[in-house]
């Protein structure tokens, strides 16, 4: 693409905010009561991270992998891709993250927790599970358009970043896709002039800052 510097994110926004949020509304209605299953899965992760047992890491990784796979297929590929052709590629990236979680977390058992969890990671996870779904409705959007962990990309990604920060060791290979999604989602929402466009870049920033703090 020549003269690439003349392009802005708005040149790549192919849909209106109204269409975007209506898509979420129709998706939420179609998968109900799947959201409750996802909430229970999220609570299970919380318990497993806090009360670490020998298989906690593998189970947490399996739940997260299931969430990423569902979001890749159930939302990104079959829904979001109908209004955004780039979503097919994003779905592939989410499928790769699923694979990485399965290999590193479930098969190799490299995602471990010593119990208690690190507070920044736990904070991010709690935010994704309980606070993030409220941001949309508190910004004036209908409750039927709320975005929940395990069914929508944003809270699933923030929850994953929280789990990765709460783990005993940083699994760098699992961080790339979630951090890239934060930028993609932030740019999309910013272009749509959404009041909550700051959430995903802030989550990415917090993650990077925490990782930098641990390293130096």
């Amino acid at each position, binding site marked *: 693409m020549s003269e690439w510097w003349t392009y802005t994110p708005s040149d790549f926004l192919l849909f209106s905010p109204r269409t975007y949020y209506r898509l979420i509304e129709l998706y939420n209605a179609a998968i109900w009561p799947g959201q409750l299953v996802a909430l229970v899965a999220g609570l299970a992760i919380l318990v497993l991270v806090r009360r670490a047992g020998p298989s906690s890491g593998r189970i947490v990784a399996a739940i997260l992998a299931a969430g990423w796979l569902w979001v890749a297929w159930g939302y990104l590929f079959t829904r979001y891709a*109908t209004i955004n052709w780039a979503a097919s590629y994003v779905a592939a990236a989410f499928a790769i993250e699923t694979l990485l979680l399965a290999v590193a977390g479930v098969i190799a058992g490299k995602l471990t927790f010593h119990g208690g969890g690190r507070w920044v990671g736990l904070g991010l996870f709690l935010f994704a599970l309980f606070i993030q779904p409220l941001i949309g409705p508190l910004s004036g959007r209908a409750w039927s358009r709320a975005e929940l962990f395990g069914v929508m990309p944003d809270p699933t990604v923030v929850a994953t970043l929280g789990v990765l920060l709460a783990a005993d060791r940083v699994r760098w290979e699992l961080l790339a896709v979630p951090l890239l999604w934060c930028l993609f989602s932030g740019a999309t929402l910013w272009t749509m002039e959404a009041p909550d466009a700051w959430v995903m870049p802030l989550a990415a920033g917090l993650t990077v800052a925490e990782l930098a703090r641990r390293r130096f």
Partner: protein
Amino acid sequence: MQDARTLNRRSLMHLLAATAAVGILYPSPATAQRGPLVTRPIPSSGEMLPVVGLGSWITFNVGDDEEARDACAAVMQAFFQAGGRMIDSSPMYGSAQEVIGYGLGKLGTPPALFATDKVWISSGARGPEQIEESRRLWGVPRFDLLQVHNLLSWQEHLKTLFAMKADGRLRYVGITTSEGRRHREFAQIMRGQPLDFVQVTYNILDREVEDRILPLARDRGMGVIVNRPFRQGALTRRMERHPLPPWAAEIQCSTWAQFLLKFIVSHPAVTCAIPATTNINHVRENMDAAHGPLPDEAMRRRMVAYVEDL
């Protein structure tokens, strides 16, 4: 040129049939008050087109949402009822082509339709495949106009499009750009290729094309389609904070949208503008801009000065 004349005769018959059908099916008592629909000839054939068309970027990309698809179909119906012809889309616009096909299916593909689409793929070899997929999505036997979107792989795609035109599978060929990009290369292609149409961004604040592209289109006998006439609605939203000047009534403008559209289509090189909307009232308002007097050069200067002062 023989082909062009044959097609022109056929399209004239289509146009007459369509005009009659529109008049019979959708009589409009307001038409007599507003004056006839303003049309412009396509320079390469003389076929007349209303100066206001319908774009589909963003607005028609509504996915599988049936309610929203019906709303788009209603916009198309209002557009045809008001005498509109050109609907423009692209494979780049998500589900827009499919939604247009849905609307055309619902409306029974009005004979007035001037189906305008684009080819947008980096592989020249896969251009025909994409064009066929677009045609299938629209549900039309053939496109009236195909354009190379944003000059992507234009050398390969123009070969395909000119071959389709020679075979009678396409009536007109064009190229597009937007937001003032690649104008130097755009002008070079205009000088070197026998294009029927070019599509560019032009509005009362973005007038760069007045310097080179529009005069060149006139010299080369090319039709001009204008995209982003309202800067994706930002221009109308900005203008609506201010009152219309009282002298806008002299050119029968009662809204800012009409004011902005009349400025664009009054340029002698412009064939039509393609505003996009999901609102029936807006499409009617836009089509109203294709009625009544258009501003002359002095009025156009006055319009620019007024808007730039706001």
